[in-house]
């Protein structure tokens, strides 16, 4: 039986050390041969002995991308018991992304969550006693990926995809109604109109593809959560960082009830900023939801910025926050440093050992220091971003490419004068692929659309 070839980034997506990209499956070696040029003249990986290490370059066509070491392990002597290639490249997010995508372009697909482990088990590599933990890994990783993939999709993009899907489904339903009840619905000269509509949809999909290439369909970046007690100046900080009034800044405690998100770019990488409602005990239900969310976000954050209000004494809220911050990647800001401070660095230092900086968010003072500090943490590899974002992006891109291909098939069929029933088959593929991005299966959507929009029947 044929086993398709999968690829994943095996190391953390951080900006230091080396990165490992792993390919597994029947065509692993063949795929690697397309992107790796070995130093030794005219030698290809498929000529190499198993369990050997080789020096060479990752190439995109003629262009050298990175200098790498490649390990070849032929099945069954590998983790998955399939042919496996490991590419040890120079670390760095952009580099790993680029190689990962190149491998996909050359025939592999992004691995599903837990798929390497699943294959290892199914192929007898992992012993029976661990079966249950394998199942746990798969279901946990999938749950996480599912949540994060929908969560990561920016609202505008998912709206756009739903809009496209709706349009596509309607066209399919019309064609199918006419096929099912030809004496009722006619398809005469329908294909001309469809050609226009499909061309338009194709353009939209191409736009999305472009966006997926520069990473803007996802809320990408280092997930940075801003916390602090009410009125500490979190929203002012967000505004200072973003450079425009996005959050409502007022002096009344507890106005930021919803979580506000922003994406900003800082020389070479981006921050995904999340401003939370203050963490404190409250009886107000709406605010309570915001507070729970804040704790939730904190759990998933790559970096936490704690805004401490130096103009009022530390209270229960501050102690609670400091408790949550212990052992996390965090930067502490002594805000309102322009006012008469009653809280000092030593007061915080007693509880936390992370970097502490004085700022005044309202006056944009010290913001450049903060940016420098974040950059330092990132480029020294002390913080890394969640690779799930990036893998999700790769999966979305695969789906968008499939959708694009199917749309082009439809246009080709129309140009070739094929009958209408051929169009709906490819359109259904478009519907299905785009559904994967927004996490919606096909189920009975078509039949429901037919019956709700078209009057059928004897």
């Amino acid at each position, binding site marked *: *039986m*044929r086993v398709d070839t999968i690829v994943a980034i095996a190391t953390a997506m951080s900006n230091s050390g080396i990165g490992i990209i792993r390919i597994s499956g029947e065509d692993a070696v063949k795929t690697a041969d397309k992107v790796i040029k070995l130093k030794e003249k005219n030698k290809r990986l498929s000529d190499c002995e198993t369990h050997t290490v080789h020096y060479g370059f990752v190439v995109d066509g003629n262009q050298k991308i990175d200098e790498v070491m490649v390990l070849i392990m032929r099945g069954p002597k590998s983790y998955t018991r399939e042919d496996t290639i490991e590419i040890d490249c120079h670390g760095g997010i952009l580099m790993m992304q680029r190689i990962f995508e190149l491998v996909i372009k050359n025939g592999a697909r992004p691995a*599903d*969550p*837990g*798929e390497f482990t*699943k294959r290892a*088990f*199914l192929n*007898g590599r992992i012993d*029976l006693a661990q*079966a*249950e933990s*394998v*199942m*746990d890994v*798969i*279901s946990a990783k*999938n*749950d996480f990926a*599912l949540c994060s993939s929908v969560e990561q999709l920016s609202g505008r993009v998912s709206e756009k995809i739903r809009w496209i899907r709706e349009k596509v489904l309607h066209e*399919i339903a019309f064609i*199918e109604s006419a*096929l*099912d*009840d*030809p*004496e*009722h619905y006619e*398809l005469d000269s329908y294909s001309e109109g469809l050609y226009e509509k499909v061309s338009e949809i194709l353009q939209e999909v191409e736009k999305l593809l472009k966006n997926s290439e520069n990473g803007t369909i996802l809320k990408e970046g280092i997930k940075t959560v801003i916390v602090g007690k009410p009125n500490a100046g979190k929203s002012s900080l967000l505004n200072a960082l973003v450079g425009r009034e996005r959050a409502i800044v007022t002096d009344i405690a507890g106005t930021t009830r919803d979580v506000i998100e922003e994406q900003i770019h800082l020389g070479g990488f981006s921050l995904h900023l999340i401003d939370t409602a203050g963490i404190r005990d409250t009886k107000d239900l709406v605010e309570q939801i915001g507070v729970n969310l804040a704790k939730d976000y904190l759990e998933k954050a790559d970096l936490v910025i704690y805004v401490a209000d130096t103009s009022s004494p530390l209270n229960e809220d501050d102690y609670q926050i400091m408790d949550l911050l212990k052992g996390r990647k965090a930067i502490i800001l002594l805000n309102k440093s322009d006012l008469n401070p009653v809280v000092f660095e030593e007061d915080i230092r007693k509880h936390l050992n992370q970097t502490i900086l004085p700022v005044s968010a309202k006056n944009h003072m010290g913001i450049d220091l903060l940016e420098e500090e974040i950059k330092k943490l990132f480029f020294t590899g002390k913080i890394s971003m969640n690779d799930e974002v990036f893998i999700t992006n790769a999966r979305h891109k695969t789906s968008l490419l499939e959708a694009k291909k199917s749309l082009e098939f439809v246009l080709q069929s129309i140009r*070739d*004068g*094929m*009958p*209408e*029933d*051929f169009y*709906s*088959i490819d359109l*259904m593929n478009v519907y299905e692929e785009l559904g994967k991005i927004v996490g919606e*299966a096909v*189920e*009975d959507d*078509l*039949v429901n659309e*037919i*019956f709700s929009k078209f*009057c*059928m*029947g*004897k």
Partner: protein
Amino acid sequence: MPCIEETYDICVVGAGHAGCEAALASARMGFETIIFTVSVDSIALMPCNPNVGGSSKGHLVREIDALGGEMGKNIDKTFIQSKMLNKSKGPAVHSLRAQADKASYSMEMRKTLQAEKNLTIKQAEVSEILTDEKKQRVTGLRTVSGGIYYAKAVILCTGTYLGARCLTGEMVVHTGPNGLSAANYLTDSLKDLGIEIFRFKTGTPARIDKKSIDFTKMTEQFGDERVVPFSFSTNPDDVQINQVSCWLTYTNEKTHEIIRENLDRSPIYAGIIEGTGPRYCPSIEDKVVKFSDKDRHQVFIEPEGINTNEMYVGGMSSSLPEDVQYQMYRTVPGLEHAKIVRNAYAIEYDCINPNQLYPSLEFKNVKGLFSGGQFNGSSGYEEAACQGLIAGINAVRSIQGKEPLILDRSQAYIGVLIDDLVTKENFEPYRMMTSRAEYRLILRQDNADLRLSKIGYEIGLLPKERYDWVLEKEKMIEEEMERISKVMLGANKEVQSFLEKCGSIPLNTGTSLVELIRRPELSYDLLAPLDKERRELPEEVREQVNINVKYDGYITRQMKQVDQFKKLEKKRIPADIDYRDVHSLRKEAVQKLNLVKPVSIGQASRISGVSPADISVLLVYLEQMYRKGK
């Protein structure tokens, strides 16, 4: 009390389209079979529309025929008009539909049943299914009169008769269709066996006296000039008959107004009806309410037969009261003076949640108990017939101790239909549609014989000479494909002027015959004059060659998808898994899997509420079980 006691191999309950196929299959496979009906006069009755086939249903009839079933042969003997639908579309959606002479259809099927040596026909209402003490294995059945019939397998094809009641406005009668007696006892016996019962509803329009119709106000609808038979074994020359016409007319605002004014007297809108009706054949009331933007709806006036004056009013099924029916029908052009012979009515009946069946159509909880047709929550004569056939075949195979015949979604529409029924949630009478078949380019009505004859022959239903012919046909297609792949045509004068004559762009340079066949305006047959070496081939061979060449790219793409699909179908799941024991499965998945008890990973993946992650977990679990067993 003394009573009749008899023993058979197989009992079939119901002699509609499912029951007839089931009984014929089991009798023809050599098993002593008895078929029960509430009325011997209603064998193979068509209580609703007077036609067989239609979009995707025509495919089912062809498949039944290729497997050795009867429906195709019977309609070929008794049709009075025939049409190939969607002829301007791709070959995958061409579909045959024939108007039947209802009385002859029923009579011919009865004669076929009577002529079968292993088959006994019995008029009796079945009241109880007999099982072993644990209620896990069927042992026979009991009739209302107390007769006991022992059997190794029982096939339920009760159609719309179980607990049936018919509604016309305020009038409710507890009968089956056409005033035939309902079957009122069997439901309780089934519930006692732990079987979950659904209540569905359907309806039929009035039949109007032909004498009272003014056809000059309608558009005449003719049959095809050259009729194509349903059955692969029917000689096409035998079906070139004088055909009758159907007629097209429309409802109008006046019709809709009358309906809207009387909605409160419609049992559905008055809340009297409990059953769920099918969305694809809505009553005229439903159409007017749900599609209020439409100012008219089509009405087809179709003859019910040669020897009857009754005309079926297609498109206007209703459960409005009799007086409203008169008003409503009489607003339609041509029906101003209509006399109604039979009133329109809605019918409610008991059926089952088909998720309780294996794809073999055997009940999961009662061994030897099979079912087919409307009883399984489907709708339509063709859908019923094909299930009856499969249930009949598998009842026999279970007695023989053989693996059941399960057609998968890439083999036949029958496979799609049964898989949908037993796997998916079904809240309304299920009808076949071409859009339900994901591999429809391969599942064409023209190649049903090529797809299924081998199976029909191997299970013992299709005669050897039929199968031999299919093998020969296959060989001819293959050889001709091979030959034409090598035929090259130069850009010479003969070719160019021929292309011009056909309205096709002239050649720049020499090309292959195959390339020319692919042009939409040309075909294999049209290009015969340019293909000097061509030998005489039967039409059905030429048709296959043409389709294979023209749609090659598309068909190849679908074949690739089928390969992927087959991989998952081949991964079997043992029947005795309790999914609660599977670590890490989500709760919803556990529930659904325990209900459906899928036979393969492929089937499992089609259950709504079972995610790809659940499937991965399940694969790991199966591997774990397998290794433990080893």
